């Protein structure tokens, strides 16, 4: 009894770890609810977020196609900002994480490149020596060396009531695995473990490690919506009450474009009925289990109604 109490006290009183927070553009635009939810979760758990407000867009892997040097230099500047603070850089977006970790790996393994980029950012007073770690919020929550599920479980006040959650890992948290190495690229477990820790039940479906289709929304919308639609309908047919994604760009295709994905699948005869699958951001799923309301987490701004989630949580 005494041990349990002291453990609990230790957990609640544990000083929070501080991160250099790179929120990413989409969480300041079309998915504001993501940033709101991350900040709620961080505050609740005692994770300190030192937001890099002057950091530029990561370029989402797109700006490389036209101006790689600009992209690399702006991202080196962002990494240098975290290095100046001696903090691990935290993202809540798989894509930002992927772009920053890719460059970080290059800077760490290619001294000539590091020197060249430092010559560019040096004029603005920055230097990057390659010492920063870049981590996604999901990894921080799951990894016992960072925050960890054992501590998170202690904070769950409103378990997800067996809600069936389809984890959508997508691309950049898994690949290329030789640079990232957090999860198995073919059989990842982190989102599944998080879901279980929150009282939900992970649903297995084939599309969870595939592309959501977002990057080609403008180039080949039909293919893009086929991808999103296939994953959503597959998750739904496996019994999912909701899907959860660690990437706001995936959210834009899976949620904001869900009506388009549904139209494409229906017009091609590969879907009968509607999809109607709520798609949650990782910190929304966490915050629901911590006891926050869907409204506090901005879930009313989603395109696919999140009512089924609310009903499930209410025991319906």
């Amino acid at each position, binding site marked *: 009894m005494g041990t349990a109490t002291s453990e609990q006290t230790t957990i609640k009183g544990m000083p929070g770890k501080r991160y250099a927070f790179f929120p990413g553009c989409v969480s300041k635009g079309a998915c504001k609810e993501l940033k709101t939810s991350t900040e709620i979760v961080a505050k609740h758990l005692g994770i300190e977020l030192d937001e890099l407000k002057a950091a530029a867009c990561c370029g989402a892997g797109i700006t490389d196609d036209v101006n790689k040097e*600009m992209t690399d230099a702006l991202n080196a500047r962002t990494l240098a900002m975290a290095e100046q603070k001696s903090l691990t850089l935290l993202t809540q977006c798989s894509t930002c994480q992927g772009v920053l970790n890719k460059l970080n790996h290059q800077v760490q393994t290619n001294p000539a490149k590091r020197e060249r980029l430092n010559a560019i950012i040096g004029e603005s007073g920055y230097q990057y020596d390659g010492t920063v770690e870049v981590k996604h919020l999901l990894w921080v929550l799951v990894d016992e060396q960072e925050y960890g599920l054992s501590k998170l479980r202690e904070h769950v006040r409103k378990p997800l009531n067996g809600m069936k959650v389809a984890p959508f890992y997508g*691309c950049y948290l898994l690949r290329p695995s030789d640079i990232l190495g957090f999860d198995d690229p073919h059989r990842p477990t982190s989102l599944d473990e998080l879901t279980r820790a929150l009282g939900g039940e992970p649903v297995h479906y084939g599309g969870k490690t595939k592309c959501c289709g977002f990057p080609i929304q*403008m180039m080949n919308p039909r293919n893009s919506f086929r*991808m999103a639609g296939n994953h959503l309908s597959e998750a739904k047919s496996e019994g999912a009450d909701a899907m959860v994604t660690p990437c706001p760009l995936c959210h834009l295709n899976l949620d904001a474009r869900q009506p388009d994905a549904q139209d494409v699948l229906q017009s091609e005869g590969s879907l009968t009925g509607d999809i109607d699958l709520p798609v949650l951001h990782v910190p929304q799923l966490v915050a629901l289990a911590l006891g926050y309301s869907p409204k506090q987490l901005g879930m009313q701004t989603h395109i696919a109604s999140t009512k089924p989630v609310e009903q499930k949580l209410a025991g319906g």
Partner: protein
Amino acid sequence: MPELITLRIRRFDPESDAEPYFQDFTFEPPSPTATILDCVNHVKWHLDGTLTYRMSCRSAICGSCAMKVNGGGQLVCNAQYRNHLDADGMITLEPIGNMPVIKDLVVDMTDFWAKIEGVEPFVKNETPEEHGEHLMSPEDFLNIDDASNCILCGACYSECASYEVDRNFVGPAALARGQRLVFDTRDEDRQGRAERLSEYGGMWDCTHCFACVEACPKPVKPLLRIIELRQDAHQRGLHDNNGSRHARAFVDIVAESGWLDEAKLPVKSVGTLKETLELLPMGIRMGLKGKFRPNPLHLLPGKHHPEIPGMGEVRTIIKKTEG
């Protein structure tokens, strides 16, 4: 007690099976350092001679033995079994994806070969040779070194998200072969190749998902070659497609305000009025939910988006990268 492992193999014989099924083979591996292919051979030679698969060189040269290992396409002759056992001491093997199964682990690669042939996978040069051969400098060769290593195993097509939903997509290995030829200084059709690969179904239809990079057993890493193709197409002035417009608009927006203007990017990415109008339902839908504020000014030239703090530094850096 010798270590026992289980290969769970997807079987299918169209002459006798209505549906594919999994069959488990449990045995002592031929050696502690055996490859997955050695283990598959053990099954065929000692346990079930009807198991059908392709293999030849056992040295990651011939490209015959690509299979899905625990869900991901890869070669099995260059992978030791002990690195792929799951918690139950099992490895699951399936035929590579996105191709029709002929029998067991053998797939019909007809479309894969058609895609490779479609990019005219040979150097085109009609100029008479001066030295008995067309020469290339070692520096120039470095640009095509990685792509030249392709062994045509098909593992990248197995995992390709775009090819999965659209057989019109040229696909990773063929685009990598395209890069190898667009960057080959001996080739006399480099501009034409870049133009054709910029069309619908080509380099801009790749989703950038890294699945081909993960699957590729060689340094080819198709996505990285596709990015080089895009950079090259940009420099050649091949700008009249949504992929190029999207990338250039993205760079312009970052240079203007330091962060993404989500309302402006889609509008600047499309090339026709029809496509612009097709964006409207999404815009209205998201506007009504408060996901962004529609700004009609975006239809006009110029900047209508607040700058990030520190934009002066961003401008200085961009200027240096241009100079």
